[in-house]
């Protein structure tokens, strides 16, 4: 019997060590000690003195995931550097699932004196809103969200990454010899569909006969499956791979088959030095800096922030030496036109990939239409699964 007790104890020790380790991880990089709770009862419009600002960041993934959440964390560091905040003025919580855990994380942050809180995943939204209703003096930001729930202390923020994807499409269209490009796509939501469409429009602006084959993975995260999907596209004859998924696996697959790849979220030339062309990137720091500054100035307002290349919140990574000759000129020209407004990516005439005219000449899709986009432009091989 004594032995059994010892076994149970060992099990317990193993479990506890995991929790302890996880605990270490989530507070790494920030000293989340019990700072005296700041009095935030003063009128919000007056602004918060800089030394009283405390910002909470809730990430869906690890701050070292080499992808989406890491991009946000780089933004946090940019913001802290630009505004001169100290380490104890931020709290980071990583790997927070899209559920009640998010609400708990936000409440913990408020208990620890946070007066600005950001959450970076779509499914965090409603949980964050629950907390926002209770704490009107705390300011909340929800990345990728599509509603502010009419709360005066709740913002959405997002980058028009499709503008950068359009530019990356130019690089891919210039590079493909087979005229077939593969696209590893995560989940069939409007954000991903919009990226594929803009990418394809970019490809066909320089290579009108090229096609973009899309395969859905139906998951946001599965590193091995991302490679398997990319290899399947390469087996189908594609010689350039683009991706809307988090890891470098598709680029590695391309390199192994002597093909080329457009990354996403991070500059990953080192993962596939012979294949990497470029990547559309987020520079979240531009938003975080402006948003926290407005809280300090007392000008903070609920908004639906959706900016692109011209605001600098999205960008195209430096073109690698793998890019085709003349790519830089074409990309620069398109970028200048997008920034000065003379090139509107979703302006007509645009046909869908079944031949129906979707946007008439002289018209363009509105932001609301872009937010619910569910069809592919001409040149895309694949379909958007319907939920019927």
């Amino acid at each position, binding site marked *: 019997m004594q032995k059994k007790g010892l076994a149970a104890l060992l099990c317990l020790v193993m479990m506890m060590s995991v929790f302890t380790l996880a605990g270490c*991880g989530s507070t790494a990089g920030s000293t989340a000690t019990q700072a005296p709770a700041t009095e935030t009862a003063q009128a919000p419009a007056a602004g918060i003195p800089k030394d009283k600002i405390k910002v909470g960041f809730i990430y869906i993934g690890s701050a070292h995931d080499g992808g989406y959440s890491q991009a946000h964390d780089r933004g946090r560091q940019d913001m802290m550097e630009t505004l001169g905040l100290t380490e104890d003025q931020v709290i980071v919580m990583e790997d927070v699932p899209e559920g009640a855990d998010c609400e708990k994380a936000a409440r913990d942050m408020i208990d620890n004196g946070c007066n600005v809180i950001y959450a970076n995943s779509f499914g965090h939204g409603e949980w964050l809103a629950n907390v926002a209703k209770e704490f009107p003096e705390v300011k909340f930001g929800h990345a990728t969200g599509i509603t502010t729930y009419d709360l005066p202390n709740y913002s959405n923020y997002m980058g028009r990454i499709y503008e950068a994807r359009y530019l990356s499409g130019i690089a891919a269209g210039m590079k493909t010899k087979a005229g077939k490009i593969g696209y590893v796509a995560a989940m069939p939501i409007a954000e991903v569909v919009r990226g594929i469409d803009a990418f394809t429009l970019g490809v066909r602006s320089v290579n009108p006969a090229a096609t973009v084959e899309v395969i859905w993975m139906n998951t946001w995260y599965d590193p091995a499956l991302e490679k*398997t*999907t990319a290899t399947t596209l390469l087996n189908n004859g594609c010689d350039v791979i683009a991706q809307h998924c988090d890891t470098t696996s598709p680029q590695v697959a391309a390199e192994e088959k002597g093909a080329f790849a457009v990354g996403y979220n991070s500059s990953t030339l080192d993962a596939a030095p012979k294949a990497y062309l470029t990547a559309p990137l987020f520079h979240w720091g531009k938003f975080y800096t402006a948003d926290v500054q407005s809280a300090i100035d007392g000008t903070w307002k609920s908004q639906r922030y959706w900016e692109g290349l011209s605001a600098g919140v999205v960008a195209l990574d430096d073109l690698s030496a793998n890019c085709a000759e003349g790519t830089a000129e074409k990309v620069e020209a398109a970028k200048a036109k997008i920034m000065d407004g003379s090139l509107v990516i979703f302006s007509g005439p645009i046909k869908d990939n079944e031949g129906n005219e979707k946007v008439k000449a002289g018209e363009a899709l509105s932001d609301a239409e872009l937010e619910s986009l569910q069809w592919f432009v001409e040149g895309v091989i694949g379909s958007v699964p319907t939920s019927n």
Partner: protein
Amino acid sequence: MDIGWIAAAAMFLQLAAQCGTPLLFGTLGGILGEKAGNLNLGVEGMMMMGAVTGYYVAAVSGHPVLAALAGGLAGSLGALLYAVITVTLQGNQTVTGLTLTIFGCGIANYIGKGCTSMTLPATIRSFYAPISVPGLSKLPLVGKMLFEQSNFVMLGILLAILIWIYFNKTRAGLNVRMVGENPGAADACGIHVNLVKYLHLLAGGFLCGLGGTYLSVVYITRWQNDLVAGLGWIAVALVIFAIWNPIRAIFGGYLFGALRSIGLVLQNTRMTFLGHEIRLDPQLLDMLPYLMTILVLVLMGVQKKKEYQPPGWLSRSYYREDR
């Protein structure tokens, strides 16, 4: 596609074998433990520990064989924890295995935080790059699957064959099976039951660690959080699917690897059946490995053939005093 369906199928099978290789290693690891009477649900955890250790050593040392050994040993270390609790302390195998999975994933992701910015040296990649066996790789259909692969994939097949020979053709293998079937009888024959269990659990952990190393060092070639992503659980199911037979594990591993990729291949292919267009739901395809495992369990129950049954003493602790 203008390359012809045979060439396309050959490439698909090549990919299926690559997807199936981590499953094969995990399954072989599971079989080793279960043949000795221990059900280890910690495969996922041991694969994660192997994946992170193998990747770290590969990135730091640049030595491919050393990386594989380190990955394997990390898996063995996980198995050692399990063995101490279930064999020496006679704790519950199911609970301990689950704990090992949680523990292994947690510690691997923790150590892995330092690995996300590391890249593998070119020596590692070229060592594990696919090699083409002259002549054989040109065989229709199976040529690319078996003979145009990384040496790691071929190692998996080789190990499966060796383990089959070990269990079925050697005295030592017979002793292990006896321990799994009836440890009391084995003990009476003078077999050191606990030693056999320890050795095979550690060896099984080593294979799981190798499976993880294959994923991080050979297949994905980059450390990613939660990189094994459930493959260890499919391997646990595969042990049953293969009916504890290492040779069938090759077939099962590759079949499940194919099932993971067939949905991707068929996604943009329009299929018609009796004039109706059919669409295969990817979620349905994802269920197939588990459905097939349940089917095998049912068939095993119906068949009542002795060699189709799990080891007699599986997941029970052995108390010498109860003999």
